[in-house]
């Protein structure tokens, strides 16, 4: 598996760009409409087919020599620089880049492995990711935990060379079609919460893991909850030191935010890229509803478009700021925040543009989904770290304002209040 060939001279960014442009044009399908996860309720069969297509497309990228641009060659990547990745991103606009497979498989999971994994783990797990063979999920949130992911209750108890895991993880997008989970577990209850965590690699489809699919407001069932009962994990699948899981977790969270903010060197393409180019949903809506000449409708269309531009301009600025060292890494939280804030207002604009007929619809109506979409508007402010956490991060880590007082900082996790007294 180890690649011993190393290029003596690195290909220049411009050469790489031209080669990518050429290759994509020759070999890759174009996309008019990028599939956005969680927007529509599709059948499991359709979903699985879509995932298979993503796997195949990733394989196509890999075989073409364009997967894992910034991943070292020994793990199947190209060993190039973030500048090369950016060039590829720019060239890939308009192509059907497999997004679902990149987040969270490449970021944060692969990024975490690259940083904390053993040589053996990297050699074993990274190449299948780049080939589209292994899809990874984050086993991070717990039903009790909310934004406080370090308060994990799910526990791994050592048993010789193995660990025995019991508990439950939740909000794993599409665990049902995925292969591995990167899993944050409590390994010590007698120290403060951040000092008793460890990270493990766990294959999803095994005895002892029961998968429950959660029905969302819009009917989709992409999110899962996993109930783990006496699941055995070899110690060799531990990532990072025992009880030092928060060291891993901090970087893990950073990589996740980076992906959402569009700043990760491991993501190909830009999230949402194709969408804005191909058509304007607000213009479509006012045309379909015969309101293209109504000044009120025009005003809303304009506001919605402005917010989209604000989101893009801010993301681009944050990326530049972090790249050039003018902004701290946690600035990605600003991009995360505007993505929710802008989306929520846009979503409400769509609702009002659609009007009374959005209350009840037929499938072919141009406004068919506007009312239903409003019901799950807040998903944008919850999934991938809540807006509350983003605001905490911006104020505390970007603006360096004092941290929130917590009761649980120096208390053994066992003693931290986890519910109202008496419960």
């Amino acid at each position, binding site marked *: 598996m180890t690649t011993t060939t190393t290029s003596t001279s690195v290909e220049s960014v411009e050469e790489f760009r031209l080669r990518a442009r050429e290759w994509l044009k020759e070999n890759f399908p174009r996309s008019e409409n990028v599939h956005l996860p969680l927007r529509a309720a599709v059948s499991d069969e359709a979903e699985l087919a879509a995932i298979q297509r993503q796997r195949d497309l990733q394989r196509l990228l890999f075989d073409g020599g364009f997967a894992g641009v910034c991943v070292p060659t020994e793990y199947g990547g190209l060993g190039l620089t973030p500048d090369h990745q950016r060039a590829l991103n720019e060239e890939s606009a308009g192509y059907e880049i497999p997004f679902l497979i990149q987040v969270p498989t490449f970021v944060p999971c692969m990024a975490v492995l690259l940083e904390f994994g053993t040589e053996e783990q990297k050699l074993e797990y990274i190449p299948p990711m780049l080939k589209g063979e292994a899809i990874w999920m984050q086993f991070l949130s717990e039903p009790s935990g909310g934004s406080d992911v370090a308060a994990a209750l799910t526990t791994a108890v050592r048993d010789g060379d193995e660990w025995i895991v019991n508990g439950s993880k939740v909000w794993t997008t599409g665990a049902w079609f995925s292969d591995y989970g990167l899993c944050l577990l409590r390994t010590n209850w007698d120290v403060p919460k951040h000092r008793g965590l460890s990270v493990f690699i766990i294959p999803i489809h095994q005895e002892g893991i029961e998968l429950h699919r959660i029905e969302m407001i819009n009917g989709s069932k992409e999110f899962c909850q996993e109930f783990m009962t006496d699941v055995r994990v070899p110690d060799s699948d531990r990532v990072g030191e025992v009880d030092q899981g928060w060291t891993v977790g901090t970087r893990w969270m950073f990589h996740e935010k980076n992906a959402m903010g569009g700043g990760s060197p491991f993501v190909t393409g830009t999230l949402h890229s194709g969408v804005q180019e191909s058509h304007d949903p607000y213009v479509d809506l006012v045309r379909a509803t015969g309101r293209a000449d109504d000044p009120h409708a025009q005003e809303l269309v304009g506001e919605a478009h402005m917010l989209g531009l604000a989101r893009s301009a801010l993301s681009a600025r944050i990326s530049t700021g972090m790249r050039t060292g003018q902004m701290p890494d946690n600035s990605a939280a600003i991009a995360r925040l505007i993505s929710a804030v802008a989306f929520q207002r846009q979503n409400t604009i769509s609702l009002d543009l659609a009007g009374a007929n959005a*209350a009840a619809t037929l499938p072919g109506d141009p406004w068919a989904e506007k009312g239903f979409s409003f019901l799950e508007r807040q998903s944008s402010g919850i999934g991938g770290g809540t807006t509350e956490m983003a605001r905490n991060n911006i104020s505390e880590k970007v603006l360096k304002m004092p941290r929130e007082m917590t009761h*649980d900082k120096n208390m053994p996790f066992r003693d931290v209040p986890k519910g109202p007294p008496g419960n």
Partner: protein
Amino acid sequence: MELVLTDDQEFFRDTTRKFLGSECPIPKVRELRDNEAGFEADYWRQGAELGWVSLLVPEELGGGSVSGNGPSDLALVAHAFGFHVAPGPLIPCNVVASTLARSGSEEQQSGLLQDLISGAQVATWALTELPPHDALGDDVTVRAEADGDGYVLSGVKSPVEAGAEADQLLVTATTDAGIGQFLVPRDADGVTVTPLRSVDLVRRYARIEFDGVRVPASAVVGTPGQVADDLEHQLQIAAVVQSAEMVGAADAGFDITLDWAFSRYSFGRPLASFQEIKHRFADMKMWLEASHGLADSAARHVSRADADAAIAVSAAKAYAGQYLAELLQDCVQLHGGIGVTYEHDIHLYLRRITVDRLTYGTPADHHRRIGELRIAQAA
């Protein structure tokens, strides 16, 4: 909901609450998701017996309010409907009953009106049309052409609440004399009813096409070209019910979320102890109490039928539609992940508020209406 009620009103409110509490607890509402009509005929008849469709009809026509202020009494039922996200055609049956009582023929009053009061029949109002014609009745494209003694109706109405469940449709249509209103049996020749997928779990709507539907002279309600007051009154009744219903739904959603904030711990503290969250609750409380005040005031104005009724109603509907929808969205947000699951109840209230916000005029529509009326008043 009014803070000060008469003893009769309290009794009436408590009876409806108790009935809804036992007949449609949340698990029942969830079950009705798969019920085609969204409600059971028996449930509706029992509700009608409690007086749900009597309140706007004078005693001499078989109805009767509780306090002498029918719209205020009806708002009590509507609040309970919202609080329980209850099913049933409360808005359209009351709209039609009220107009039949005001302007119906003797035959209509002794026939359909009595059946509405008893719950034996269901009627609905077909006003709204497909965009861009779905305004507040300013732009009615469904035509009613005079044809001998009767009329022939053509065009499409959408969405029509309980359109597939109603026995009779009160159709607002344009005639040569101006706007007129007509009672059309749902099963009349030329009527095609297409059930729609509704944002609400149990409140159903339909798209109804009228393809040369012939109705006799006896189907006319009021006098074509002279129904402006009826139309305005119908809109006001609909909006009074919607406003009170939104308040009821928001009350329930707020209570659930406040409980959650006390019981959910994060970082070793209840959510309710985080200042930023506390301040959001303060804003929600303000929106909620203001919506209560506006909805009550609207019902009182309509009860008195005074000159400011239209403005009061639009203010209540616009404010509740805007701020209570945001309130519920923030309730969802505060719940985090489980707030966007089907399993959790919070979306039920958001659904009801969403359909109430959208139908019979969006907040922006009502802002504009208030502005027009204010400017006209000052002229």
